[in-house]
């Protein structure tokens, strides 16, 4: 505590040139005039009990994202269920089954429906329960709240009320929207990380009002009371209007005093705040939109098939009814044994149309088996199980954080197998938001040996590839030399890593170079420049040191992570920044002797801080000898423009190094300095102070101008390269995904340079790729162009770029589009978006930087709707919520603490790299499984339902069913459902290893090879064929003669049962043929279903219930002893499956698909016998791609080959022809 207090004595605001965005703490404008609608909220601070009664009773801080509650569950869930047409149809049918129109027993209609709907609702309930538990986790978080008499105690978030005083400590989330009263800093400043709200990683400064600053201790709240009147809840994150009445004075409130829920306190020990908006009133909750319910494309297509089946149903029902009307009118009067007309007019030859109408209803119910009632529920069961597999996959379990993958909604599993474009967030998704100081260039010499992740992985890849290539003695001799060359280059990189392995890793510092470490720099040629370099690192920043008492080390709290990395680096080099006072910075310098550090004081005279516009920051310091120095660090282009003529000594070498670093995906800054003499400085300072204390709108512009005059004629010292640390495995994953034919777009809130760096690091960009930067920056800012002109400019850039791509001859040329958010606003307008999309689709990589959350969503929608392909959005923060919800599939990164993205997502994974397995393995499988399953479902129901229809023609279209009601009831629910589920859950065309090794297999999904109309209709035709075979074979075999040695003839029940046996055996054998992967579970379920039919028949035959339907002892006495029954079953089963078997054998023989061939290779164990072939195929099994490592390596090989060829030709040798 004491430590915090001491540190807090610094008035942070004075560190800033621009004084925390406010000219001065004096309030020149009075309270806001807030009357009228929209501004009715009153908050009585520290008197939360007032808010327990109307009209001041605001909503509680309990948040709920569940769909249902206990009361609404039944009505709402049932309504949801019957929104599906098929279910509604079955509900109607069940209702009608209670009337005499029904061909069936009501039970046989109602029971399956109750079962199916009940199961679906149980699933809904379970999912909602999980959501509820997740909400409760948030709701039960503890916050420290003022209880009474200045005592604070913990309270769960959900119990917070408006008016409560809350104390939030460092790194905690704000439990509600708060008004900042005071902080541990004297001037009421606090740092807030808003990553969950807008995805920006830099910290934001909030400042309390002057009046409330004394309230910085627990006991001071004993007597505190005040009133806030402010705006009503609204979703605008950046505005706030309100008045604060305290001590009979009214003060205006600004957005800078508001701490929003779900943002986080950083670099500040604690803050006190008053709760203004709670729960769903808070801005972040107001911002959240209901997550749309998404349905997969397969399911949408399935709906179409269901409509198609409905029309078939209607069609055959109409045929039946017409037949019935004719029969009723002309034949029925002659059929004396029917004694027509009946009382209910169901069979009235006098009123054939009335009876016909009734019959139509009957027929619609009777043929309802055409619509698979259990399809939806089976799919749901399958998807839940598939989701279970996704959740349990050990390869997607992150050991560091202990988070498994989480399929939050199970209805998009198969969509994972059809993704075409991935839209990814950057920070937190691709990168860890951690900077590592990696390399530097000082005085024109490059230091730092450590290879970045990228280089390491690339080296490995290349070594492996050349290994494989050397084995093939074909046309590669030419490039052999080139390979060796590149290998040698890479070798140094790789080996240097092993030298000093035992050193513990330091967070933010991965620099390794003995030339300047441990004080060795003193022996380097430009030691004086190196000294300056280190001093700039340790002085030019706004960070605060925080000594850790336990370990004695110092950690730094910096606004941006790269600043932290610099300070850690400086410390490691022997320039430990240890203390900051109001006016000075103290550094422990291990100079001139490395062993004995000396504490030196540098007076900070001015601090010209960083803005995104200036892209540089400077400090002016006076060292102990009285020398005034301006130390500056900034973007290389900016610094190079400001160098003095004699400060350009190292420019050339440094530029070269900077390019190398850039290519390696490192973030670079240039460092420079300038010596000032006293007079020059004081003249400038006078001017600077005058401007700083002035008021007026152009104050900032003026300040900038004055700063600018100072930051000129600099002398270049060197450059730093910081690695924006990628998440583990990201480049490899991107590479694999690219090989699987997926396009990857990066949408980031970061600035363009950072985005481009990461593009390099992830191999989305590479040297030699043509970068098309579309921005509005390069139009002259002085001319306040009209929107129209800007727009035309953007359009022109787009058309030019498109033209350029069209004219490109080289097939290996790759393009990348990089566009910034401001330009994107124009590019996304209706009249331009298609041009933009066309351009983007033609390019290998697309990077959008500085985009707002809303733009992310808009881009996603553009891709989704413009290309008609399936998009996947992946992100980790609240700023990604829009795009996650907009995309066909939203994936959230669940490792970090913010929950918004995960809450909105369909799938949550802990690491970006798991995306590969999620798509290439699970997506691929799920797609095939679901596609096969649905096709089979239609097959089986067509095969079954049509037999009922054919029978009508033989029963005078009277609506009599050949089967016993119970058979029909069990058909969908028991006898054929489990094998389909096992197909949908366990089927694997190739195992997961192979899926990963052959990414090209993934393309079967996006190309939709398994659910195209050809296949669907093929299966339907198969069903039609099976129905014909089953029906007519049985009818003819059991026609009129005896079927038993005892002379008995078959009655309706016997024929029906024999036929039904045929159906069960045929469809179950069919599914066995469809499967290519049998574990004992499949065997058990498929053959078990057949056996269960016989068991059922046996049991049913013994039931008293079976007496009314002539099924009594049907198997034991009637059919079992009859050879004709068994032989018919065999005949029907085999005849039904004959064409399919022939078809797939033929298909495999002449038109094998990739997975067929791989299955065969595996089957013949060729992969083990011929490992070389297997490796070769693996390296070839990828889609043509221009991004990713492999493409990068390819490009490099091409480059080297080209160089080699040129060398040969210049030497006058005969060049062997190269392809």
């Amino acid at each position, binding site marked *: 505590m004491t430590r915090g207090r001491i540190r807090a004595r610094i008035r942070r605001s004075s560190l800033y040139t621009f004084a925390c965005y406010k000219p001065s703490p004096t309030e020149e404008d009075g309270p806001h005039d807030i009357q009228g609608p929209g501004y009715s909220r009153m908050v009585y601070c520290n008197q939360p009990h007032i808010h327990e009664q109307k009209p001041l009773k605001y909503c509680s801080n309990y948040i709920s994202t569940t769909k249902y509650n206990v009361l609404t569950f039944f009505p709402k869930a049932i309504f949801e269920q019957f929104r599906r047409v098929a279910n509604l149809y079955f509900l109607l049918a069940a209702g009608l089954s209670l009337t005499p129109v029904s061909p069936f027993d009501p039970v046989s209609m109602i029971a399956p429906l109750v079962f199916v709907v009940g199961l679906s609702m149980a699933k809904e309930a379970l999912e909602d329960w999980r959501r509820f538990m997740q909400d409760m986790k948030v709701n039960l978080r503890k916050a420290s709240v003022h209880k009474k008499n200045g005592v604070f105690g913990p309270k769960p978030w959900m119990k917070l009320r408006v008016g409560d005083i809350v104390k939030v400590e460092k790194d905690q989330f704000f439990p509600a929207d708060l008004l900042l009263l005071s902080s541990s800093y004297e001037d009421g400043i606090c740092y807030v990380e808003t990553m969950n709200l807008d995805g920006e990683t830099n910290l934001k400064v909030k400042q309390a009002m002057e009046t409330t600053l004394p309230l910085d201790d627990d006991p001071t709240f004993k007597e505190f009371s005040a009133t806030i009147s402010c705006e009503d809840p609204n979703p605008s994150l950046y505005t706030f209007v309100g008045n604060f009445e305290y001590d009979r004075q009214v003060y205006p409130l600004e957005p800078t005093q508001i701490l929003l829920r779900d943002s986080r306190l950083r670099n500040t020990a604690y803050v006190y705040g008053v709760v203004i908006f709670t729960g769903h009133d808070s801005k972040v909750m107001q911002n959240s939109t209901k997550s749309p319910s998404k349905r997969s494309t397969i399911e949408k297509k399935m709906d179409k098939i269901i409509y198609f089946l409905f029309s078939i149903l209607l069609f055959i029902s109409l045929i039946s009814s017409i037949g019935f009307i004719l029969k009723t009118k002309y*034949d029925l009067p*002659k*059929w*004396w*044994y*029917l*004694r027509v007309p*009946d009382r209910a007019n*169901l069979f009235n030859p006098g009123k054939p149309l009335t009876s016909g109408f009734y019959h139509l209803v009957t027929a619609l119910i009777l043929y309802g088996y055409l619509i698979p009632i259990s399809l939806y529920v089976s799919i749901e069961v399958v998807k839940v199980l598939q989701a*279970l*597999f996704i959740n349990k*996959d*050990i390869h997607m379990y992150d050991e560091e954080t202990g988070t498994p993958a989480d399929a939050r909604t199970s209805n998009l599993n198969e969509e994972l197998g059809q993704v075409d474009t991935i839209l990814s967030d950057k920070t937190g998704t691709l990168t860890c938001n951690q900077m590592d100081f990696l390399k530097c260039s000082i005085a024109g010499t490059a230091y730092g040996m450590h290879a970045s992740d990228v280089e390491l992985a690339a080296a490995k890849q290349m070594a492996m590839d050349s290994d494989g290539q050397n084995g093939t003695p074909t046309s590669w001799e030419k490039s052999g030399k080139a390979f060796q060359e590149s290998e040698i280059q890479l070798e140094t990189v790789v080996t240097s890593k092993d030298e000093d392995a035992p050193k513990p890793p330091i967070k933010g510092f991965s620099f390794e170079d003995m030339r300047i470490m441990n004080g060795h720099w003193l022996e380097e040629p430009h030691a004086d420049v190196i000294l300056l370099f280190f001093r700039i690192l340790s002085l030019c920043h706004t960070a605060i040191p925080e000594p850790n008492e336990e370990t004695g080390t110092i950690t730094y709290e910096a606004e941006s992570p790269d600043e932290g990395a610099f300070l850690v680096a400086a410390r490691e080099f022997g320039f430990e920044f240890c203390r900051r006072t109001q006016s000075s910075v103290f550094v422990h310098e291990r100079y001139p002797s490395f062993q004995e550090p000396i504490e030196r004081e540098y007076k900070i005279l001015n601090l010209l801080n960083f803005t995104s516009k200036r892209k540089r920051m400077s400090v002016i310091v006076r060292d102990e000898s009285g020398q005034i120095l301006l130390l500056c660090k900034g973007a290389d282009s900016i610094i190079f423009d400001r160098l003095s003529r004699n400060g350009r000594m190292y420019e050339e070498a440094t530029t070269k190094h900077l390019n190398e670093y850039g290519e390696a995906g490192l973030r670079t800054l240039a460092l420079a300095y300038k010596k000032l003499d006293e007079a020059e400085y004081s003249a400038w300072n006078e001017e600077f102070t005058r401007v700083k204390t002035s008021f007026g709108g152009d104050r900032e512009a003026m300040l900038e101008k004055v700063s600018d005059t100072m930051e000129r004629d600099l002398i270049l010292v060197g450059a730093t390269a910081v690695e924006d640390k990628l998440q583990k495995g990201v480049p490899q994953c991107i590479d694999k995904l690219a090989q699987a034919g997926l396009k990857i777009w990066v949408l980031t809130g970061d600035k363009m340079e950072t985005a481009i760096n990461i593009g390099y690091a992830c191999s989305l960009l590479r040297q030699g790729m043509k970068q098309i930067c579309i921005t509005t920056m390069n139009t002259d800012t002085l001319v306040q162009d009209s929107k129209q002109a800007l727009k035309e400019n953007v359009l022109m850039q787009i058309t030019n770029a498109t033209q350029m791509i069209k004219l490109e001859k080289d097939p290996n040329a790759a393009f990348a589009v990089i566009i910034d958010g401001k330009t994107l606003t124009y590019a996304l307008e209706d009249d331009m978006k298609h041009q933009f999309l066309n351009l983007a689709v033609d390019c290998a990589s697309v990077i959008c930087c500085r985009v707002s959350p809303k733009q992310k969503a808009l881009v996603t929608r553009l891709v989704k709707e413009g290309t008609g392909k399936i998009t996947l959005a992946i992100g980790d923060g609240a700023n990604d919520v829009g795009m996650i919800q907009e995309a066909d599939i939203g994936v959230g990164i669940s490792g970090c603490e913010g929950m918004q993205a995960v809450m909105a997502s369909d799938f949550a994974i802990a690491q970006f790299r798991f995306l590969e397995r999620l798509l290439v393995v699970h997506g691929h*499988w799920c797609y095939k499984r679901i596609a096969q399953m649905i096709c089979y479902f239609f097959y089986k129901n067509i095969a079954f339902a049509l037999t009922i229809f054919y029978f009508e023609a*033989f*029963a*005078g279209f*009277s609506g*009599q069913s050949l089967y016993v009601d119970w058979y029909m009831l069990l058909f969908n629910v028991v006898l054929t459902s489990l094998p389909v589920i096992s197909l949908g859950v*366990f089927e*694997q065309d190739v195992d997961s290893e192979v899926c990963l090794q052959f990414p*090209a297999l993934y393309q079967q999904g996006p190309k939709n090879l398994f659910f195209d109309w050809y296949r669907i209709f093929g299966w339907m035709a198969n069903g039609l064929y099976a129905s014909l075979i089953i029906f007519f*074979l049985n*009818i003819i075999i059991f*026609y*009129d*003669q*005896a*079927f*038993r*040695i005892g*002379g*008995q*003839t078959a*009655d*309706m*029940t*016997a024929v029906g049962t024999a036929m039904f046996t045929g159906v069960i055996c045929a469809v179950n054998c069919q599914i066995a043929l469809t499967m*290519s992967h*049998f*574990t004992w579970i499949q065997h058990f379920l498929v053959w078990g279903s057949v056996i269960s039919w016989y068991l059922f028949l046996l049991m049913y035959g013994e039931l008293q219930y079976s*007496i*009314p339907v002539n099924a*009594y002892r049907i198997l034991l*006495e009637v059919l079992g002893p009859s050879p*004709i029954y068994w032989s018919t079953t065999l*005949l029907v089963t085999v*005849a039904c499956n004959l064409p399919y078997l022939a078809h797939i054998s033929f298909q*495999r*023989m002449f038109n094998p*698909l*990739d997975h067929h*061939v*791989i*299955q*065969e290779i595996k*089957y*013949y164990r060729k992969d083990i016998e011929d490992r070389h072939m297997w490796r070769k195929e693996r390296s*070839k*099994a990828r889609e043509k791609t221009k991004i990713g490592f492999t493409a990068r390596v390819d490009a490099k090989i091409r480059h080297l080959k080209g160089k080699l060829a040129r060398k040969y030709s210049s030497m006058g040798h005969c060049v062997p022809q190269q392809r």
Partner: protein
Amino acid sequence: MEMEGGSSSTSIGIQNDTVSLRQRRSKFMHQFTQQNLPACKPVLTPPWVISMFFVFGVIFIPIGLLCLHASQSVVEIVYRYDAECVPEPLRSNKLAYIKDSSIPKNCTKHFKIQKHMTAPIYIYYQLDNYYQNHRRYVKSRSDQQLLHGLKYDGISTCSPEDVNNGHPVVPCGLIAWSLFNDTYTFFRGIDELRVNRKNIAWQSDRDHKFGKEVYPFNFQNGTLIGGANLDPNIPLSDQEDLIVWMRTAALPTFRKLYGRIEENLDADDVISVNLLNNYNTYSFSGSKTLVLSTSSWLGGRNNFLGMAYVAIGTSFIFIASIFLLLHVKNSRSYGDTTNLSWNWK
């Protein structure tokens, strides 16, 4: 076929049993959740396909021949009598003939036995264009009443033949009401051939579906007489022709067992049938046929099953030969990487 990934280790030792069981269970759970269970992955390679097709063909053709043989061994005499048994002058209005109860319905026919018939010889009547499977007809019965008689009164399903003169009808419903009532008597020369009309219905029907204590009541007492009357002194469980009739047929053409002749009939025997042509099929121009048939292990005469087997078997052999031919002539090497799509270009 091959087993992959599964290594089965059986541990011996009693005290290890529980441990190994748990281990095995956890191993199973792991393999299950990782979708890694040992699996059999059959691949339709040409040897498999061809031999499979051949095997099926080879199995099916003999079965078919066997069935054909059985079917051919059945001797069948079929005699359609509905038209013939109407006296010549009344043939223009058969309906009037059948409805006029004053006209005697006797009719006699002689056949010559073509082929030796071994007992038992089954007598069937066959009706044609008779929709016993019509929904209205099928539903018009009460199985509870058949079993429990007058004790059961929920017989609304039997409408319109449920109540007559205020009393329930036993057995109720259209099916029972329309019971077939032609009768046949057979003579060899002048000796009457005994027709056994017992045990023509299923045992279970007699024992469990038709009450032993249930006697016909108020049956065929209404204004409309349907078919046969029943002897009110015999319980339903013994009225076997009713039991057979109540098993509704699946198709509009059907045979029902009438009885058995339990003597062999030799070739060239002359049989005469004395029949009472009572049943009205004339109003819907259905035919009535008398069938005498022996039976084989397969039942009656039914060439179709055997032919179907032979046909399917032949097509298997045919397809197998085509595959063989194609495989030999134009084979692709299985598991050859040139067929992978990325090797096409």
